[in-house]
């Protein structure tokens, strides 16, 4: 933790007053962001009976969702979706960041243009892509036709629908993560490359032994954040497919949404969200373990400490 370094930027006097400054934000965060998490977990152990009476249910909700084929299917869909989307987005984001990390003409314009999908929200992105991918009238099949490829069913096919959603998420998400990686790249001292070049390194060895390790923090931040966001992805399923065809796009979060807002079975939705939270902890725990520092202070602390001191 931080000691008081010489010339530290800290007020010494009036230790108590900052709590007033913090009160509004703390109250709002506690009530509207942290409390709901506990409410969820507790609610997953309750059930509603006739006339809306609440009773304790132990593990009944969990037993029910784990014997429900549509939930088991959605667990698989969620995992599949993440296993494909996260690496795809990160690799693409890295490639784009590397490509845009140059001082050439139009790079600023290119960056600006690539930021545009970031400011467009998921509903609009899904709506536009939905119309582009309309099997009979959309431009996607028209363009494929020009290339000699037969028209594809896209969202009406149980084999392709999930891929369509993956494409939409990539289209929208890659630029966002590229921002972080680009910032990370620009923080790397270029003198390191000079030293490497004198020794005669190739492009790829430079990439893997210098660039990526130097980007480690940004990369981990991006991977972890992206994983969390994608585990909870459900808007394309909500808007475009209703979980189909044949449950191929039915993500866990969409099941949670339906349980709450279609069937008014809030306790079932809390159980599903609790399961999702557990999955998130496990996956992120694994990621931290995998990316831990081989020496010294341990990654988790570095990740948190990143925000805490200068």
């Amino acid at each position, binding site marked *: *933790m*931080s000691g*008081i370094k010489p010339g*530290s*930027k*800290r*007020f*010494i006097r009036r*230790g108590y*007053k*900052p709590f007033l400054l*913090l009160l*509004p*934000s*703390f109250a*709002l*965060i506690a*009530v*509207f*962001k942290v409390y709901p*998490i506990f*409410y*969820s977990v507790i609610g997953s152990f309750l059930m509603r009976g006739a006339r809306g009476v609440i009773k304790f249910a132990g593990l009944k909700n969990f037993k029910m969702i784990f014997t429900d084929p549509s939930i088991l299917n959605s667990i698989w869909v969620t995992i599949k979706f993440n296993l494909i989307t996260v690496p795809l987005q990160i690799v693409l984001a890295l490639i*784009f960041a590397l*490509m845009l990390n140059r001082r050439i003409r139009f790079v600023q314009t290119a960056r*600006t*243009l690539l*930021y*545009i999908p970031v*400011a*467009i*929200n998921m*509903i*609009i*992105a899904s*709506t*536009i892509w*939905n*119309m582009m991918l309309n099997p009979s009238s*959309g*431009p996607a099949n*028209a*363009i494929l036709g*020009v290339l000699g490829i037969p028209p594809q069913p896209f969202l009406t096919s149980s084999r392709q629908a999930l891929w369509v959603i993956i494409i939409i998420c990539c289209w929208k998400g890659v630029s*966002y993560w590229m*921002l972080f990686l*680009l*910032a*990370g790249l620009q923080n790397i001292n270029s003198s390191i490359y000079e030293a490497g070049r004198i020794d005669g390194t190739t492009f790829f060895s430079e990439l893997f032994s210098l660039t990526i390790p130097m980007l480690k*923090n940004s990369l981990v931040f991006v991977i972890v954040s992206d994983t*969390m966001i994608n585990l909870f992805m459900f808007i394309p399923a909500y808007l475009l497919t209703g979980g189909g065809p044949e449950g191929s796009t039915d993500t866990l*979060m969409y099941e*949670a*949404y339906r349980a709450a*807002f279609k069937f008014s079975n*809030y306790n079932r939705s809390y159980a599903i*969200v609790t399961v999702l939270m557990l999955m998130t902890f496990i996956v992120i725990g694994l990621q931290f373990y995998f990316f831990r520092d081989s020496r010294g202070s341990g990654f988790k602390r570095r990740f948190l400490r*990143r925000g*805490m*001191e200068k």
Partner: protein
Amino acid sequence: MITKRGVKEKTLDVLYYVTLLTIVCFALFPVLWSVSNSFRAENSEIFKHISKLSVYTFIPEKFSLNSYRNLFVDNQFHRPLLNSWIVAVLTVFFGFIVNGLAGFAFAKFKFKGNGLLFSIYLFSFMIPFEMIAIPLYKTTGAFGILETRVALILPMIANGMIVFLYRQFFQDIPDALIESAYIDGAGLLRVFFQLLVPLSKPVIISASLMIFIQQWDAFLWPLVAATNKSLKVVQVAISEFTGEFTVQWGTIFAATTIAIAIPIGILIPLQKFYIQGISSTGLKE
């Protein structure tokens, strides 16, 4: 070190530019296509130029505002636009005060629990909204504020990421300035508003931009918390077009064009600030 630009380098260059161009086209095609369709006179024109690609695939044969007329006259789209605007602006305003003060506290005060509390703030910002949407709905229901503008704004004001931004920035402001203001008898609030704020224009712009776009793009929360006609926001209104009105392509395109024109119109001139804001949250110091 001087390298000769041989054939290999030149082909790599060409490859690079072509790839870059393809990427940019892929990123922008949906947007351009949708914008151009919004200015077409008739829906059938959209499909006419689909199977036989031509320049008309992107440029309307005859520039027309029919879809926009339909959007505003028949569908009263000005209301969701106004609603989104009001909610976003109010959240920006309150967000600036609430998060700014918190950032000030974390940056300039030593107190027990500074680290722990700040971790909680950061943790809260990493929570995907979907995780808490449903219980949040229940708890705000208990407060009785559902179906009001308050419900759309209040839960979104405090934001760990924004607090982080302000904290980073304020840490760079020399203590000496603050000390001397204090010696002159200024209270904490005066220090904040009269000293820090004028010096913090960049971070205020970044933070406000981020909050604005977050609220403008918000969908799940307004969907469940406030759907009556007088409060409905842009994204919810657009989601209702799909399915029910899939035959009214032109209207949908007009709606999406306007809905993205506003955040993009704000983002492009101020992109430097927005990007600085986002990327500084991912950087290790």
